[in-house]
């Protein structure tokens, strides 16, 4: 009976994982396909053709470049702002802190359609031409929330007397921040910025409203569905997947190492 229970549990777990990973597997697999026509939807034959010429389609390549630029820029800005918001919220009691808390959660809970369309109407009211900068602004908007909440969760346990100790030893505010606070909370910030980068790269709905005539990678893929769907789309997607897996692995290793080094330093407080 107990054996049967184990079997059942393993089976369900495998099914659930399969459900999660099958689409990803299909994407990777079809990057090696040699499609019959313009649409890479049916398996025909194994080929490295698409991997040899990943940038064969100019527009696809351009959309990927745009997406990466948007993601890099919006992540940078959102990480700086979000980190400072998180620091302010954990560090100080001030009027309006609870309002900011609420406002931070709002972009996460509001439907993207609403966010995207209201941003668009704001831009139209301002007579701003939609394009690269409006995409970046829109992405910063929701990324800031994710960064602030992630960083805040990670710095809950930060020992603020460390800052006092640094100040006491003669370090001015800048030195305190860059030599003590920042290095200690860096793992949380890195994790948050990776999240922001992924969210930006991935965003479709909000971008659709605010992109003007610019085409990001998700928008291109959506459009390609009608005209042509070359395996290069899968190649680039797989490349992103690999890159993010590598960064994730490296970050996890790095965080484990710093945690191990600091692990015991928490002991006297416990």
């Amino acid at each position, binding site marked *: 009976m107990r054996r049967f229970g184990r079997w059942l549990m393993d089976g369900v777990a495998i099914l659930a994982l399969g459900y999660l990973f099958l689409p990803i597997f299909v994407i990777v697999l079809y990057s090696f396909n040699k499609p019959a026509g313009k649409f890479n939807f049916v398996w025909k034959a194994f080929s490295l053709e698409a991997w040899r010429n990943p940038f064969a389609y100019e527009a696809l390549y351009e959309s990927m470049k745009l997406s990466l630029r948007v993601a890099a820029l919006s992540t940078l800005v959102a990480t700086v702002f979000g980190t400072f918001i998180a620091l302010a919220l954990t560090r100080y009691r001030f009027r309006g802190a609870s309002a900011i808390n609420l406002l931070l959660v709002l972009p996460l809970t509001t439907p993207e359609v609403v966010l995207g369309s209201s941003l668009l109407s704001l831009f139209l009211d301002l007579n701003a031409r939609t394009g690269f900068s409006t995409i970046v602004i829109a992405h910063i908007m929701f990324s800031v929330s994710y960064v602030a909440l992630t960083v805040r969760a990670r710095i809950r346990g930060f020992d603020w007397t460390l800052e*006092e100790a640094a100040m*006491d*030893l003669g370090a001015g505010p800048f030195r305190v921040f860059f030599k003590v606070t920042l290095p200690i909370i860096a793992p949380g910030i890195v994790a948050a910025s990776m999240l922001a980068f992924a969210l930006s790269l991935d965003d479709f709905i909000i971008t659709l409203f605010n992109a003007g005539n610019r085409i990001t990678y998700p928008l291109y893929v959506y459009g390609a569905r009608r005209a042509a769907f070359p395996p290069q789309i899968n190649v680039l997607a797989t490349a992103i997947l690999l890159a993010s897996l590598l960064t994730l692995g490296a970050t996890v290793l790095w965080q484990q190492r710093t945690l191990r080094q600091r692990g*015991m330093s928490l002991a*006297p407080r416990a």
Partner: protein
Amino acid sequence: MPLTHVSNTPAAPTAADPSRAESREPVITLEHVVKRFGSYLAVQEAHFAIGRGEFFSMLGPSGCGKTTTLRMIAGFEQPTEGRIVLDGKDVSRVPPYRRNVNTVFQHYALFPHMSVADNVAFGPRSQKVGAEETSRRVDQLLTVVKLAQFADRKPGQLSGGQQQRVALARALANYPQALLLDEPLGALDLKLRQAMQIELKRIQREVGITFIYVTHDQEEALTMSDRIAVMNEGRVEQIGTPQEIYHSPASVFVANFIGVANLIPAVVEHANGTDATVVVAGSRRMAVPAGAWPPRPGAAATVMVRPERLRLTSQAPADGRGVPVTVEHAVFQGPVVRCTLRAADGTGIVAHVGPEQSLPALEPGLPLWIGWDLDAGRLLPPDTVGADAQPFVKADLRHTMGRASLPRL
């Protein structure tokens, strides 16, 4: 007025000798310092000077304002009123990173991402001391605290006592004018605490820097300090050497906080400049030195006698200066027998009976007489809170509270 005097509390004049601290050049002076948090008065009228090279302790129960006073000296808090003078300069509004005093924090606050050597080097580097001089200081101080072989470790890989010593070396690396220590041994177990007390004292002598030491452990303060400031509810009740504080407490609070004290309610019968005669236990006349508190005939007062200064006899003393008591119980404690007695008016008395006093077996109910030498008694202003509470009970309670140190939030 000499700054070593506590000027604001006429009810509790200090017995400290003002000339003593003046023999040292003052390095830190608090002038009429008041600190309020909103309407809450955390420190009232702190007014004293700390001499160069002195080991100065601030002692008092939880919440009495010790940490607040220390944080004002360090620069983390600003006094609401008054000034703090460091080496002749008013630093009341100077930020911590421009004051040449350093702090050892209760939980060490070592930088977890830096090696031991980098922790120690942080101060000199912040002050733009050259690389060569910095590494010389790091070597020197790690040798002083006996951690030279751990220079490359991270603080997380050290034991509590070792971390404590890194914190000490780090705080000394700027060669501060004074080192501020806020219950630095609070997180250590008893054995290690005692070892570190000796170690701290050795290091202080070696480096010759003023230590300002906050503790609520009276034993620690008595064994380590040149002078002690006893604080209560934001007020400095008395400043003096451990001997002065112990033998001549200025108030009932101080008497009770340091060691065990018998506090006997009394009425002043008659007083001249040096001696006073008081009536205790209803009708017994006893002589005590008049002390710093100016007693008026007819005034209520408290007589303080330490348990080891009480003389117990089977017969009434020949000079008639004695109080009849009965034994409640006696506990053998090795060097002394701790004997709980009760006077006819219900006052509880504790006596430490040494082997030199020849007495019959101290059975409960045994009638005895207590007396003391003229210089063993101290005349204090009356206890405002329950003078007739049993002193030994208070003392024991305080003792247990002192052990359970509450973490600072």
